[in-house]
């Protein structure tokens, strides 16, 4: 495998966490335009912990996930009772606030003769924990995909459980779910916190893959992309978001066939797809059919 292919595959893995995060909220009936903020929180906090405090990556990742879910919880607290577009707008506002806070965030320390740490709009250089330990690109790829696999397995188990059924019930008809005795608000808060942790994990991995992050990485474009990934791939299964990321990063960008007008192709594709399959390629019907066939 050459480095280019490895890079593309790693990126697919990284952004799948973010897409899964958006997907989790979508099946609970909420459209968040702000998951990129928690991706950013993960990237910044993970980077600071390894690059400045010298903590090992797994510890940093755990702390970052906790922080991501805490932030998501705090944003969800006043906003999750809002409906539909209002929630979408509130999360968008929260995420843009986070991005501007990243721009204002300066926290640099002398490490080994150079300044390391977030430097406002100049970004955050030198997140080299993985690089310094001599991890090959292929090794990192395996790490990212290993973690993604774990996340997917958890998702699949969750979706077959009572928890998954509850989640979809809330997504389809919150009022009905409420009348069945489900505490919808509490449930959604839990979902938001979990989605925040997922996004943060993606962010940590993203920061250590690139070694350099800047506030611009976490703008609204990233958030809407993650939503689009989940919607193209389909809301029927956790493989949906992954498929969505593959279509964009793998086929359109990775193949380099559409170089220079990838967005024209991607944009048109998404718009046309949504007309014919408004809940994505792998929607509930297709997944149901596949399950009936193969199990």
């Amino acid at each position, binding site marked *: 495998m050459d480095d280019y292919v490895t890079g593309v595959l790693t990126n697919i893995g990284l952004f799948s966490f973010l897409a899964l995060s958006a997907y989790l909220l*979508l099946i609970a009936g909420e*459209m968040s335009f702000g998951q990129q903020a928690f991706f950013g929180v993960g990237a910044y906090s993970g980077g600071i912990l390894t690059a400045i405090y010298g903590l090992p990556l797994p510890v940093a990742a755990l702390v970052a996930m906790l922080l991501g879910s805490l932030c998501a919880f705090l944003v969800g607290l*006043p*906003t999750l009772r*809002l409906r*539909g*577009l*209002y929630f*979408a*707008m*509130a999360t968008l*506002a*929260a995420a*843009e*606030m986070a991005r*501007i*806070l990243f*721009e*204002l965030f300066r926290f640099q320390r002398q490490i080994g003769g150079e300044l390391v740490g977030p430097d406002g709009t100049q970004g955050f250089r030198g997140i080299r924990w993985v690089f310094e330990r001599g991890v090959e690109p292929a090794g990192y790829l395996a790490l990212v995909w290993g973690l993604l696999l774990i996340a997917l397995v958890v998702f699949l188990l969750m979706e077959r459980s009572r928890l998954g059924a509850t989640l979809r019930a809330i997504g389809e008809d919150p009022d009905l779910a409420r009348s069945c005795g489900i505490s919808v608000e509490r449930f959604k808060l839990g979902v938001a916190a979990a989605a925040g942790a997922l996004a943060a994990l993606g962010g940590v991995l993203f920061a250590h893959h690139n070694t350099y992050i800047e506030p611009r990485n976490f703008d*609204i474009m990233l958030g*809407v992309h993650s*939503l*689009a990934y989940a*919607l193209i791939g389909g809301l029927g299964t956790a493989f949906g978001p992954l498929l969505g990321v593959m279509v964009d990063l793998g086929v359109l960008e990775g193949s380099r066939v559409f170089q*220079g*007008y*990838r*967005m*024209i192709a*991607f*944009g*048109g*594709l*998404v*718009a*046309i797809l*949504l*007309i014919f399959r*408004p*809940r994505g390629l792998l929607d509930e019907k297709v997944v149901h059919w596949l399950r009936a066939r193969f199990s």
Partner: protein
Amino acid sequence: MLVDLIQNTLDGLTAGAAYALLAIGFTLIFGVLRRINLSYGPAIMLGCYAATWFHVQFQVGLLVLAALTLAATVLAGAYVERLCFAPHRDRSAIAAMVASFAIWMQLEELATLVLPNHLYAFPALYEGGPLSLGPFTLRAEALVMFAVTVLACLALQRLLYRSRFGLSVRAVIDQPVAARLVGINLPWVFVRVFAVASALGAVAGYLIVASAGQVTPMLGMWSTLKGMLAMMLGGLGSLPGAIVGGLALGLIEAHSQWFFGPQVRDLTAYFLLFALLALRPSGLWTTPRHG
């Protein structure tokens, strides 16, 4: 200090006038279709780009430029309506919104394919320096912006309250089911509302790039965000609210920029939006809806 405060207020109202125009277009679409059109700003940007392209090729005059901006924006708006909103009419608002985002990507790349530089000069409305009124300065463009915004609002008011089309628009905003029951052809209203909203957006876009003297692809995202923000501040779907929201946004931005700098300016605007949504989701100036 007082002079600065007043000067900031003037600047804020100028910016606010442009925001108000953007918000009115946004609100028309939201009020009638109950959908968020993320491609609203990018369509305006494409309109301005089309005009810029003509200017680069043929050196056309100001009026021709304005007409071109208008025509191209309305055309781009029609494309967005056909692809993102017409097919999702009776279906998911989320799908329509994501589709409008997808088309945003398209329009933005299209613009940069046609004119690849990051920045293009756009003929200014007025070549002279700012006018001074005692200790205050006011750019001539600001006066034009104000005048045009007021005129556009009056024209819209007339259209909404004095025409059959206006009656149908208000009926659809007020009570969509009843609007269908009295025989209003909804799809046709949607198409025309899109055209009017795009035209208003084009006016705003033209004035904005002409006062800035330049156009960049960022105009798309900028217009969508400002328009949406002003609409939310004024209360979703209320047209007078959109005007108040636009002016309020301009004022908030001007004052917080003067006190805290540009980053905090944006932060304040988003914080306000967030707080408003969390505390008062129906907006600041909305009247409670009946029925």
